[in-house]
C-alpha cells in the first residue's frame, strides 16, 4: 500500500513538474500563423473608450499603452498576457473578421491550471465572436481545477476580439 502511495506522490510531482513552461515562442506562433512569412508588426494605441471596455472585461487596467499585432488581409495575430492566479499566461490568438480562428497557450507560468493548453479546451473558441455586450457568443466549458486559467484565457479571447474590431474600424476609417 505504501509503495502505491509513494508511486502516486511521485507521479503527481512529475506531472506538476512537466506542467508549466514555454509551449511555443510567441514569434514562432506568429511565423506559423502566417505560413512562415509574418507581416511587419503594427501597434494599436487603445483609445480611452477601448481601454474602459478592456478594463471591464479584465477587471483591471491593461498594462501598457500600446498593443502589438500582426495583420495580413483579414487575419490578425495577437499575443496577450493575463494573470491566472499569480503569474501571467501568454496566449496567442488569430482573429479573422470578428471571429476567433486559433487560440494557443504559449507560455504558462503557474503551477496549476495548465490543462488550458490542450486542444479540447482551446478548440471551444473556434469561430467564437463577440456579442453586443462584449461577451462571447458561445459558452466555454470550465475545467475542474483550472478555473482561474480558464477565466484568464476566456477574458483574453474577448479582449482579442475587441481589439480586432478596433483595428478593423481603424483600417476602415
Amino acid at each position, binding site marked *: 500500500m505504501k509503495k502505491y502511495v509513494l508511486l502516486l506522490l511521485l507521479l503527481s510531482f512529475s506531472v506538476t513538474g512537466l506542467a508549466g513552461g514555454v509551449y511555443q515562442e510567441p514569434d*514562432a506562433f506568429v511565423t506559423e500563423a502566417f505560413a512562415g512569412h509574418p507581416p*511587419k*508588426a503594427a*501597434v494599436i494605441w487603445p483609445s480611452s473608450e477601448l481601454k474602459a471596455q478592456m478594463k471591464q472585461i479584465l477587471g483591471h487596467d491593461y498594462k501598457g*499603452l500600446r498593443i502589438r499585432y500582426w495583420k495580413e488581409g483579414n487575419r490578425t495575430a495577437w499575443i496577450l*498576457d493575463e494573470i491566472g492566479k499569480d503569474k501571467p499566461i501568454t496566449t496567442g490568438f488569430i482573429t479573422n473578421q470578428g471571429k476567433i480562428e486559433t487560440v494557443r497557450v504559449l507560455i504558462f507560468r503557474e503551477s496549476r491550471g495548465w490543462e488550458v493548453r490542450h486542444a479540447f479546451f482551446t478548440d471551444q473558441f473556434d469561430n467564437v465572436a463577440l456579442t453586443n455586450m462584449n461577451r462571447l457568443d458561445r459558452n466555454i466549458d470550465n475545467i475542474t481545477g483550472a478555473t482561474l486559467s480558464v477565466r484568464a484565457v476566456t477574458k483574453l479571447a474577448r479582449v482579442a476580439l475587441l481589439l480586432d474590431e478596433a483595428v478593423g474600424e481603424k483600417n476602415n476609417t
Partner: protein
Amino acid sequence: MTGRSAQKHTVFLWHRRAGLTAIVFVIVLAITGIALNHTDALKLDERYIDSAFLLGWYGLEPEGEAISYDVGEHVITVLDHQVFFNTYPVTTTTQAFHGAVGTAQLIVLAFDTELLLLTADGELVERMPTGQGFSEIQRIGIKYQRPVIETAGPRYYMADEHMLDWDVIINEDIAWAQQITLDQTKMAVMLESFRGRGLTLERVMLDLHSGRIFGAYGIYLMDAAAVALLWLSFSGLWVWWQRQLKQKRKHHYQKHHRG
C-alpha cells in the same frame, strides 16, 4: 510524605516550572501591553523601524543590489525584481537587468529575453518579449538615437524609431549604457519607496504582543503563555490558601495543646 503534602508539593513544583517557562513571554506580554496602552503618548505609530534584521524579517528589506542606469533626465533602477522610474515603481520583472537607454520617443529597458518600453514620463508602453528572433540580451546601447542590443553570439540589432522592426548592424559607434551608482540620498529615497510606508514600532509591538511576529504558530505560543499565566494565578492562589490553612492549624495547635 502524606497524600495531601504530595499533592501540595506537585502543585508547587508545577507552579514553579510554569513560572520559569512563561517568564520571558510574560515579560514580553507585559512590556508590549503597557506600550500599546500608551500608543499615542509614545508615538508608536509615528516611529519607523530601521533595523535591517526586522525589515528583512517582515520581507521589507530588498534582496540584492540596486542596478541603476541614467537615461537623460531620469534614472531607471531595478531593485529586488522591482523596476523604478526615478523612485516611482513601474512594474516587476523576474529577469536580470542589462541596462536602459533613452531615445527620442521612448525609454527602453533590456532584460534577458524582454524589453520594456516606457514613455518619457515613466508610463509603461509595452512589454516586448524578444522570443526566438534574438534572446539572451547582454547589453543595450544607442546609435543614431535608436536602441541597439547586443545578444549572445554576439550579434547587434538596431530598432526602428517605433521599436517595431530590427536590423542587424555591426558593432560600430554604439554608445553602450553605463551602470551608475546611486548616491546615499537617492538610495535612501529608493529604499523608502521600495518599503512603501515602512514598518512602524506599533506594528512590531502588536505582533510581539499577539505572537504573530513568530509566524503562523506564534499566536499559539502566546496562547500557551497566557494559559501558563492563568495556571500561575490559580496555582499561586492554591499554594497561598494551603499555607494559610497550615498557619491556622499551627496556631490552633499552639493555642490548645502547648504545655
